[in-house]
């Protein structure tokens, strides 16, 4: 393992590369990039200890704009490249950058398997509910009936709910944030960084070109507080302009109620260790419910690379790695 080396404290701009950023004006990706640079700087880690791996899509250009190690791979396969990298160099801070098409369509298989393995990586899913780079086809998160270039009469595909999928696949850190809400986004990114295991972060990202305002109903400033609910461990689940709304549990179902209609004791308290509750929260969508932001769930489970490398060191302790012995095998004979 490489020793963490001495370096002066880094600033967000130290994490910017010399490459011109080429997203469309107004693209949500800019905001995420900026916040990620801040979060990276705040971790105190050296640039050389970050490896940012992406698939293909607009969002997957991300690594080029960071002055860390970066690898722009092929469509949908970033989790697999990250798997190999993490198994080779577990000490690195590995970030997978992916879009909804990249990780849920072509890479769906790798996504669920990364989550079940619980590699210690940070998986940032930029969800714009559309294919940006290929100019506007519907994605696995597009709402049913959505009219796009490839669905002129509306889609007939039922969408995925990324967070439910992640929880179902065994993710140990599940969170959501919004591209332009820098403060909560940064806190989620730092939470992901500090979590040991796969951190799955869905970021609502606006694509002004092909799917403008896809999340505006819940992310627009004037309505934000009514339509989003901030998740904080140990805090009651209340929301609204004056925090006048609350969530309660009614026979294994969530219900949004007026706070005044229930006793404080009835109000659900957020518990990031409660996976069942996280499932319920993941399925809350506007307009029936406010949409939760923040950390839905955080659990502890051994990581894939730790289990694998433990086996390696165990094997190394119990058996000598003698190449001659291996190549010669048990049954060899000599011809004079």
């Amino acid at each position, binding site marked *: 393992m490489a020793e963490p080396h001495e370096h002066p404290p880094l600033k967000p701009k130290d994490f910017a590369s010399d490459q011109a950023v080429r997203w469309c004006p107004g693209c949500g990706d800019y905001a995420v990039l900026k916040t990620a640079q801040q979060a990276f700087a705040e971790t105190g880690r050296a640039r050389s200890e970050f490896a940012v791996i992406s698939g293909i899509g607009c969002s997957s250009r991300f690594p080029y704009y960071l002055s860390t190690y970066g690898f722009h791979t092929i469509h949908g396969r970033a989790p697999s490249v990250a798997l190999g990298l993490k198994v080779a160099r577990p000490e690195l801070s590995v970030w997978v950058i992916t879009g909804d098409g990249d990780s849920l369509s072509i890479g769906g298989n790798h996504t669920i398997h990364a989550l079940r393995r619980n590699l210690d990586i940070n998986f940032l899913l930029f969800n714009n509910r559309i294919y940006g780079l290929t100019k506007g086809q519907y994605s696995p998160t597009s709402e049913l009936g959505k009219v796009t270039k490839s669905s002129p009469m509306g889609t007939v595909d039922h969408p995925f709910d990324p967070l439910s999928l992640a929880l179902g696949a065994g993710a140990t850190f599940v969170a959501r944030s919004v591209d332009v809400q820098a403060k909560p986004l940064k806190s989620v990114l730092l939470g992901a960084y500090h979590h040991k295991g796969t951190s799955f972060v869905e970021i609502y990202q606006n694509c002004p070109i092909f799917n403008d305002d896809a999340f505006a109903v819940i992310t627009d400033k004037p309505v934000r507080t009514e339509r989003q609910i901030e998740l904080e461990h140990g805090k009651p689940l209340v929301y609204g302009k004056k925090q006048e709304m609350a969530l309660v549990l009614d026979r294994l179902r969530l219900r949004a109620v007026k706070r005044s209609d229930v006793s404080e004791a009835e109000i659900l308290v957020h518990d990031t260790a409660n996976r069942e509750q996280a499932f319920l929260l993941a399925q809350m969508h506007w307009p029936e419910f406010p949409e939760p932001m923040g950390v839905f769930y955080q659990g502890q489970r051994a990581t894939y690379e730790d289990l694998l490398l433990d086996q390696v060191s165990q094997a190394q302790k119990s058996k000598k790695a003698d190449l001659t012995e291996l190549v010669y095998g048990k049954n060899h*004979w000599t011809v004079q």
Partner: protein
Amino acid sequence: MQENTESAPSGAAKAELVIRHAVVRFAGDSGDGMQVTGGQFTSTAAYVGNDLATLPDFPAEIRAPAGTLAGVSAFQVNFASEDIYTPGDEPDVLVAMNPAALKLNLADMRSGSTILLNTDAFTRGDLAKAEYQSNPLEDDSLEGYQVVGVAMTSLTRKALQESGVSSKERDRCKNFFALGIAYWMFGRPLEPTADWLRSKFAKRPELAEANILALQAGHNYGFNTELLPVYFRVEAARLPAGVYRNITGNEATVLGLVAAAKNAGRSLVYGGYPITPASDILHELARQRHFDVRTIQCEDEIASVCAAIGASYGGALGCTASSGPGIALKQEAVGLATMVELPLVVINVQRGGPSTGLPTKTEQADLLQALYGRNGECPVPVVAPASAGECFELTYRAVWLATRYMCPVFVLTDGYLANGSEPWRLPDMATLSMAWKTTHAASEQMNGFAPYDRDEVLARPWAVPGTPGLEHRIGGLEKQAISGNVSYDPANHQQMVEIRAAKIDGISQEIPEQEVEGDADAEVLVVGWGSTHGALTAATEHLSESGHRIAHAQIRYLNPLPRNTGDVLRRFKRVFVFELNGGQLVRLLRERFLVDCIPVNKVQGQPFKVVEIEAAIKPHL
């Protein structure tokens, strides 16, 4: 069987015949343990010092209904006191455990050869399952063969009456009874197999003893009943001096990977997904964790090759293996590895295709896939071992090429090499490790790191994440020369395409020149690649023994080709190219060298027989 000298009768039995080689095929239902029986016969042949070659042949169905033609599993071994190169065209002895095994294998038997049958299995039901209209033991269909019928099932039962194992387990020992007879026939020692059984069933010693008893009973039966008028002796082969072991191609491939990684001082990260006949590479590597081998059983082939690339990016040796269909899935990622110029070893244990094809049979039809089966101009080195033992050498070499030249390298083996075994003269481990060199550690001295700067062989530096000061970005988009920044500049693209091609072409300076075996002044040259080597060598040696002038070139480096390949081809008046495909290498040679090579192709899921090769050439000699 080739007779040498007939020696005086010895012991209680009759004549002992010293022969130079013999081919024995064990065939039975896939539940009868024929692979184990054949494997043990092989180990014992190796133990007494014979040269040998094997051909396991199993059905694609794991457990077809017992007794049916679809369920027949066979194992052929050729063992000799002289150099041999193939498992043999025709068995001298067929051990058939049931009618289906007899029916499927009879066509390969020459008249006069010996057929050892389990008569207990020739019941009406089993005959029907084998689609026999009448009992071959009773009609005259086996006339001309030396048929030895033994009630193996009942004799085994009798022998194991006191053994204390269940009657089902008793019946399963009959393959060792048959093996015992075969051992008697060839005067083989029983002890190595007994030892093997004792360690295999260490946890159930009663099972080990039952099998040993069956083995002994079969041997005694042959001895006491004087089952055959003669028995045979195949003496130890006079192999070149050295230390030997018996090895299959897949085992040798694994050793090549482990040895290369160890000598390179790097972790081996292997991404795998099970597929016949490549799975054993994953199985074997998974047992080598103490060599810092990190195997990952991925969710699919795409993930496994990508994990290997990710590992190489991280400074480990990333490798992956599969067979045709899985390799097809990996190809996009091989293109990525070519573009980002990272080491990667991709092993293709070829099988019959297209699609799922003949999953348990051998073929060489993925050569063009390896050379051209990707998008864009994407040249990749391709090597092909010619024998099980060579799988070690060339896999080792492939790792070396991948790390030296920073590129993916294909290793093409096949089902026949993967599963067949042969005595392998072990390499000198000391010279092996000294042969290792990787010239470029991350070039930290570089001022302002340039990930696509190149050394004298056009390789770029291998800068590993975690190294301060070398931060850089790579990806599948076209790179600007030297800086590695994304570039769509037309002239730059052409330049980069040419550099990547020149880098691979340059490997021809590194690899050995093409050798020609046999008569260098002959008019006829036979060319092959990969596993056809044994049959081609046997055929050309045989032809030249009978006075024909003939030469043989086996191509092990298929991309780039050895630098003298054109000269070699042009030296001969007629050039035959033998392949287990529709004619893939022949296209390459014709196109590259404008030599009018004559294709000889077999696409039956089976290796060439020596007689087929001779028959194809003889009219032209």
